[in-house]
């Protein structure tokens, strides 16, 4: 099993129970979308998988090991195999795109290589290739504060692609990006996961994106799993109930009504 959560619970310092006794298993190479209203615990769940948070109770194993039962250097090696695309790209504004992308492999490089790359980027072709996959190869030497929000988000994705992780996690990677671009970014992440056979777990705000690109949908509400099904078995009623606390409509990319029953929506070719 690639990922196993066993009664994993996370209670924040303020007493908020963000993830409540969640158990689930995700096999190697699976592509899973996590959906649910804001505050449902999507981000916390992903941060558990990213080993950023330690479960308050229960246990988890990531890439076959329990991250909280291994030594510091082993944890560092494990983390270098986990790539996370953040909702807001955590890139210093004055950094150049090439440096921001190359920083993805700092966990794999020896220390001297990381230091040398500060003086002069050690793998310009590698960074250019990843930015090209995000269609912004021309921004290679641009400073990140010169980029638009969508371009900066793509630099963040390019960094994780460059890292070549064995587990790809994405936390609402396209919530600040227009629909056409969202589709291309998710498509590229899915392509990466498929060609390299690695696991992809993505939390998504737009339900239509999740249903279109992912063969397994986990809906969470109130820190617990509401359903865990392939998209064809996710019904309109389930979604309505999942988002009942937030609004009367299910969130989609253009805020167009989503009719799950019609196969046309799910099978609509969104990306060539």
């Amino acid at each position, binding site marked *: 099993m690639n990922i196993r959560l066993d009664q994993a619970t996370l209670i924040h310092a303020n007493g908020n129970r963000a993830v409540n006794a969640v158990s689930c298993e995700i096999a190697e190479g699976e592509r899973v979308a996590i959906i649910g209203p804001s505050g449902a615990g999507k981000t916390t769940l992903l941060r558990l998988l990213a080993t950023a948070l330690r479960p308050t109770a229960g246990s988890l194993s990531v890439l076959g090991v329990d991250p909280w039962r291994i030594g510091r250097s082993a944890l560092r090696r494990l983390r270098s195999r986990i790539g996370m695309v953040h909702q807001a790209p955590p890139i210093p504004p004055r950094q150049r795109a090439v440096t921001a992308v190359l920083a993805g492999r700092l966990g794999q490089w020896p*220390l001297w290589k990381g230091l040398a790359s500060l003086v002069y980027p050690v793998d310009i072709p590698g960074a250019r290739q990843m930015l090209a996959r995000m269609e912004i190869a021309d921004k290679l030497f641009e400073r990140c504060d010169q980029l638009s929000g969508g371009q900066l988000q793509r630099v963040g994705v390019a960094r994780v692609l460059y890292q070549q992780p064995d587990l790809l996690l994405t936390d609402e990677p396209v919530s600040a990006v227009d629909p056409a671009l969202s589709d291309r970014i998710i498509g590229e992440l899915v392509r990466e996961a498929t060609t390299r056979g690695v696991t992809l777990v993505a939390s998504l705000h737009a339900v239509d994106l999740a249903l279109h690109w992912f063969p397994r949908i986990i809906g969470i509400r109130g820190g617990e799993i509401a359903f865990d099904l392939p998209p064809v078995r996710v019904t309109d009623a389930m979604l309505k109930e999942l988002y009942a606390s937030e609004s009367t409509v299910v969130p989609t990319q253009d805020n167009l009504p989503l009719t799950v029953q019609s196969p046309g929506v799910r099978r609509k070719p969104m990306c060539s």
Partner: protein
Amino acid sequence: MRSVHWIVLAALAASIWASFAFLSLNLGELLTVESRALMWKYVVSFFAPDLSSEYLMRIGQGTLETIAISAIGTALATVLGLLLALPAAGRFGIVARAAARLVLNFLRSIPELVWAALMVMAAGLGPFAGTLALALHTAGVIGRLFAETLENAPAEPAQALRLSGSPRSLAFLYGTMPNVVPQLVAYSLYRWEINIRMAAVLGVVGAGGLGQMLYFSLSLFHQHQALTVIIAMLLLVVIVDGASAWLRQRLVG
């Protein structure tokens, strides 16, 4: 005005009068015809400045010495300040934080002139003492500013890098440094500008540079040469102010 204000004013006036009486200062003496004539004579004795090429050569050397003292002093302070700022920003635990803050406060609370007097005793007369004095005091100031900059820098970029397995040192260099470097450069340049002025003064306690020349010429009643030194100091300060403002704008903007 309310009566309270009158009472405060009266108290101020009384304390000022008491201070003059306590120190036996007699401002009136400054304004007598005799003292005015004496002052005028002293001022005139400075003119004209000694512009002989031989002395100008020495002035040039003194100016270079002052600039060098301030530059090396500030550079040393920047390195020492950054080394102390890392623990002072709480990156190595609470104990290290308190200890580093104590050291920074100690360095900062002793003025440059006192450091210079101490260093002259320790390292002998000359530029070495001045450089050390500037480095020690400035390290205290700059370390404190650096520590605050580091504490205010966003934590997410470095955290994200550590989550992808990056060692702590590289996460700091790739995630935190780009956010703080402009601030660090601006602080260092600003302190350098202050230190050039300070280096010119430090010579008075024997720490080399233009200040030492000024002190010698005044002690030996060579007023013409003293005026040359004063003019050189003024020019140096004007040039440095302009250059530093321009540089900071270029580097930080």
